[in-house]
């Protein structure tokens, strides 16, 4: 069974009577443990695709299955639970809660899963240690570098032990050194834990870390190559 299975996904935005076809029929399968990069110029529909794959949004048409479950039949609450259990997100701009410690930030997904506090914090601590931030537990986002903040975000994506990690331009706000550190962590997560990673980027050097490159242009898949 595939981790993610998209068949002919279409997403059309309507804004003030103008409609934008962000995705025009994307068919794509991501297997468990895979490491894929979605490549394409800005505005090609990469983020839209990632939001659909992550069940943050619903397609205008087409079918999406997550872990074999057809998403269209799920309520918003069921979708929220599906996200919580099977998908981890990493965003370009980190999206950490300000004035909240790294530990609490990382523990947040477990709050919505109803995990007791002590267990939550223990798992958050372990996740932070696995990204090399065992010494930054009580730091707030404003007290950390961009690279550290993104690693906190990765720890947060990991803490719920998802099957798929979706990363939208995770290195976009980082310098080269921090960027490659983040890529090193994502690679080792994929290799050691077997988490499927779907990485969105417009930089070929970053995409080169993945074994599979999916090229998107104007809302369509242009090429899908494995190295």
């Amino acid at each position, binding site marked *: 069974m595939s981790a993610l299975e998209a068949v002919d996904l279409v997403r059309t935005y309507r804004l003030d009577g103008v409609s934008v076809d962000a995705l025009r029929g994307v068919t794509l399968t991501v297997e468990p443990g895979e490491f894929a990069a979605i490549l394409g110029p800005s505005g090609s529909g990469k*983020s839209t695709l990632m*939001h659909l794959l*992550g069940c*943050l*949004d619903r397609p205008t048409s087409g079918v999406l299955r997550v872990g074999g479950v057809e998403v269209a039949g799920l309520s*918003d*609450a069921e979708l*929220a*639970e599906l*996200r*919580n*259990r099977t998908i981890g*997100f990493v*965003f370009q*701009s980190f*999206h950490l*809660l*300000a*004035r*909240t410690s790294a530990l609490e930030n990382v523990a*947040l*997904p477990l*709050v*919505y*899963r*109803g995990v007791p506090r002590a267990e939550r914090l223990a798992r958050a601590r372990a996740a932070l240690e696995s990204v090399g931030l065992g010494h930054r537990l009580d730091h707030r986002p404003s007290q950390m570098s961009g690279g550290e903040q993104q690693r906190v975000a990765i720890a*947060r994506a990991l803490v*719920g032990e998802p099957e798929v990690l979706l990363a939208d331009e995770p290195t976009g706000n980082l310098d080269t050194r921090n960027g490659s550190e983040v890529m090193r962590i994502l690679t080792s997560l994929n290799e050691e834990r077997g988490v499927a990673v779907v990485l969105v980027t417009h930089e070929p050097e970053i995409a080169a870390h993945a074994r599979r490159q999916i090229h998107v242009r104007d809302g369509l898949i242009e090429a899908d190559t494995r190295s």
Partner: protein
Amino acid sequence: MRRREAFLIALEALRVNRMRSGLTMLGVIIGVLSVVILVSVGTGAKDTIEREISGLGSNIILVVAGRLNVAAAPTQGRLTLEDAAYVGRVVGDPSRVTVSLQSGETVRVGQAEQFATVVGTDHNLPNVFDRPLDKGRHLSETDVDTRRRVAILGAEVADRLFGDVDPIGRQVSIAGARFRVVGVYATVGATFGVARDQEVHVPVTTAQRLFGLPRLNGIAVGASGPDEVEPLQRRIVSALEQRHPGEPFSAVTQTQLLGTIGTVIDMLTGVLAAIAGIALLVGGVGVSNIMLVSVRERTREIGLRKALGARQRDVLTQFLIEAVLLTTIGGIIGILLGVGGSLAIGAFTPVPTSITWWSIALAFCVSAAVGVFFGVAPARRAGRLDPVVALRAE
């Protein structure tokens, strides 16, 4: 997500935004504070007046000529000493009927002088009113019958004119006539704004001659028990109206006086509390406003929470609890400040205050309700936010 978690998240969000939280609470704090203080001042005033009226004595009926008007000073009516004697026969016990004729006069002792309310009354006064003596004696029947120039001084008059000297047996001059002091009343305080310690009592017959007034201001009757008060009141009025056909007479009992004044004060307190309640509502509108701003500002946070698995309900609950926490914490602070303020007013100003538990309970419940009522709209908006839109917001 469990309730406790939602509660902790909301509390944390308030802590993180504590500046804004404090300012938002301010409206609620001021509203609750005003409600508590105004109600306690109103209740204090009512308690004081009730205590004063009860302090007069028990089961008292006051009879005057004409239509009764609580607000106006007693007018010199048609009542005479003969009417008082007649009322004594109606009551069946003349010793429970006393009279009053008042005039403001200057009382002198040597160089010292003091303005006092000179009251012409009789020997039955202590049978009707609680008027304990500090020294000397009350008026006697002979004092009244023979128009003696004797006087009993209120505590304050005695103190001002004689200081530490014992006034008994000494002379005072009232409206140019010399009187001998035979008694001094104990301190009783004010009733109804009437400073009873500034009174001087003289025989009513002496007063009528001195002031040149043949009439009385009023007759007071002491009923033998609480059950007798109202029937006796009706009997006295109809007997007087039969005696003087075509002329109205009125009688008011202590209970009626208490009731009327209590109602008036309750109404005033109610109006003031309602105004303060409006302040509380305005505070609620402020909460609603700031919660909406807060939802907008925290759009990204909401999107993130949803991406991480928060359901619409979880976000709604969080924001609703935030609103209710804001107003109840504000309410508790307001109550504490209101109680403190009331105690301070009671201790450091002449205004009496009395803190009532119901006003505190009401203020608390209303502030919680304000939180629910004004928190629902912003919380729903937060819950409905589309996670993608929220995450893209920068």
